[in-house]
């Protein structure tokens, strides 16, 4: 993609996981700027927040890579306070569900500080939080609150979906002079892909056209975070049926890349948005509203939102298997938009595939 520096041919890449991409971004930031420090429950521990901080303690020492008390609210405030006095903290909350106790600091303070004091004081703060399903984590360990953060002017919100973007977006977030919320889907950590060497930035506020764009596409699939991968799978299935889809990985929820979405819908006239959160009052509503407001006459059919049903996440596999939407749901939505029949076989689960694991290497207890 032209907007992504790291896709340029000159840079060599290696395969690494999403978690390693995050790790590399943080190592680069710690290396290049002495005001960067990292703080989070367990950040220096042997598991290193699912491998995203592993080895950083050893490399940068205990002042730059800090554990913290189980006091998410105060520690978010401490991060704000150190950010307005010259540091550049990276704070990690291991689940957005835990960070609910820290909303006040994020929303009243971090987001508004620069504005409410007359534009004098930047808050260069990155807050990493894990969203989405883990392994049987249920109602209080799997929420996805991007719509909340995106509703708050003053924050920036990113949701990388690939290892390369994980590295490039996180580095941009850390270098940005504003509070950036980085929401990382638990199921992405183990995912491996090509990642360029060295420092590079993926710009905040830019979506990525992941697939298609040749001009014959009949439907635009917009994904957030993990759902971008399901959208990609959906596009493959649609292609088998002779339907071309454009897939956009939103990447940034705030600011929202209106142009990339509108351009695609202008080409296809049809929109499916797939979110990792509850549909109702979710981020998909903003995408739909934006498209309707700006491209009403380009729409050939009503846009469709895909996401979680309107009740909390159940833990039992028997209940969660049908709770989470996946590629077939996007395919079915696209087919309906095109007035094509949907084969129920589409939803069949292959032998040996467990729907509560991203792949078979992913096991409990986390």
């Amino acid at each position, binding site marked *: 993609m032209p907007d992504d520096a790291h896709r340029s041919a000159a840079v060599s890449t290696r395969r690494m996981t999403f978690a390693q991409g995050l790790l590399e971004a943080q190592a680069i930031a710690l290396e290049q700027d002495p005001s960067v420090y990292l703080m989070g429950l367990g950040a220096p521990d042997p598991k290193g927040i699912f491998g995203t901080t592993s080895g950083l303690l050893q490399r940068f020492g205990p002042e730059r890579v800090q*554990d913290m008390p189980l006091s998410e609210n105060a520690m978010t405030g401490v991060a704000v306070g150190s950010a307005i006095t010259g540091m550049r903290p990276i704070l990690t909350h291991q689940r957005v569900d*835990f960070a609910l106790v820290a909303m006040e600091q994020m929303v009243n303070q971090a987001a508004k500080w620069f504005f409410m004091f007359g534009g004098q004081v930047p808050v260069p703060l990155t807050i990493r939080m894990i969203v989405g399903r883990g392994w049987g984590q249920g109602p209080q*360990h799997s929420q996805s609150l991007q719509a909340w953060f995106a509703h708050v002017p003053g924050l920036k919100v990113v949701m990388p979906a690939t290892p390369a973007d994980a590295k490039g977006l996180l580095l941009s977030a850390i270098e940005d002079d504003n509070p950036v919320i980085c929401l990382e889907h638990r199921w992405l950590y183990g995912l491996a892909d090509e990642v360029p060497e060295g420092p590079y930035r993926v710009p905040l506020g830019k979506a990525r056209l992941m697939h298609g764009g040749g001009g014959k596409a009949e439907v635009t699939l917009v994904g957030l975070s993990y759902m971008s991968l399901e959208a990609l799978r959906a596009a493959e299935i649609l292609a088998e049926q002779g339907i071309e889809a454009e897939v956009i990985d939103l990447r940034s929820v705030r600011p929202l890349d209106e142009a990339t979405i509108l351009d695609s819908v202008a080409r296809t006239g049809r929109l499916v948005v797939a979110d990792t959160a509850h549909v109702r009052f979710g981020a998909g509503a903003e995408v739909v509203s934006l498209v309707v407001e700006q491209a009403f006459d380009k729409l050939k059919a009503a846009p469709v939102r895909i996401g979680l049903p*309107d009740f909390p996440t159940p833990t039992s596999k028997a209940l969660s298997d049908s709770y989470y939407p996946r590629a077939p749901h996007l395919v079915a939505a696209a087919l309906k938009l095109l007035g094509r029949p949907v084969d129920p076989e589409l939803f069949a689960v292959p032998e040996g595939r467990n729907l509560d694991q991203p792949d078979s290497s992913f096991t409990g207890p986390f």
Partner: protein
Amino acid sequence: MTSASAASAGSAAALANGPDPELLWRLYRLMLYVRLVEEKIVALYPEQQMRCPVHLSIGQEAPAAGVAAALRPGDQAMSGHRSHGHYLAMDADLDGMFAEIYGKAPGCARGRGGSMHLIDRAKGFLGAVPIVGSTIPIAAGAAFTSKLRGDGKVTVIYLGDGAAETGVFHETLNFAALKKLPLLFVCENNLYSVYSPMEVRQPLGRPIAGIARAHGVATWEGDGNDAVAVWQMASEAVEACRAGHGPAFLELATYRWREHCGPNFDNDIGYRTVEEYETWRARDPLARHKALLQDRLGADDAAFAALEGELQARIDAAVAKAKAAAFPVDTLSPEDCYA
């Protein structure tokens, strides 16, 4: 607005004279029960049929047993992520617990919660949730109801040393002291919050109980691997709560043997030393209490074997039931989140 009601004469006498044989056996039975249930989880977890996190309390059985033995029917308890022992010691439904961990329909939370969401209201176990600190004020709310209604119940809230770092803990101490709530805080200080030792989280040399004391709360500090000592402290504390003297606080030193979450040992990963682990292993609350039963009551191997056999049978039956039980039917709808 008072819940004062004198502690029963029996418990006062027991307090004075130390535990009687029946109580000593009860403490052992409770601890063994918790241990065996969790060892069963250890054995079965690798089958990957329990598809949710599990936080085992093996090595920490004494607080649950000692505290539960100091309560009377009608009393209430709540807990957090590491709640199996607290739930089981209240005599809460074992079948419901295993079914819940297996994600089955007869689970105590109908499979919607998993191991971190145990509940058995009939037995006074009002619920456990895995957001650290969150049940502390909720338990205070339950005690507040008791205070408003004068129903004489005492509510226990179990928490860890990590939970003592949450703001809501402090807020609840203040409120409980203000309203003189019949609320017993039981803090199991096992030295770690996940893999983080005390020294990266709290200033050294100040007890957690001291914070409660500063709020005007009566406190006890002691050996959390000694069931009799726990029972003794809890009995005094519960009596004070029930007498309307306000909340009480126990800080109990104990140790988790296995990994923070999951069935394995994790001394190899480097966050704690094998020496430390071995020291605490040597303070096994069960072994210690078993010796007491042998020494003091002359309990013989047959008695222990009989007890273990009985409990094991009960556990095996619960597991078999859970495995055989149906999964919940997949017809949840938005209505299911409204009463």
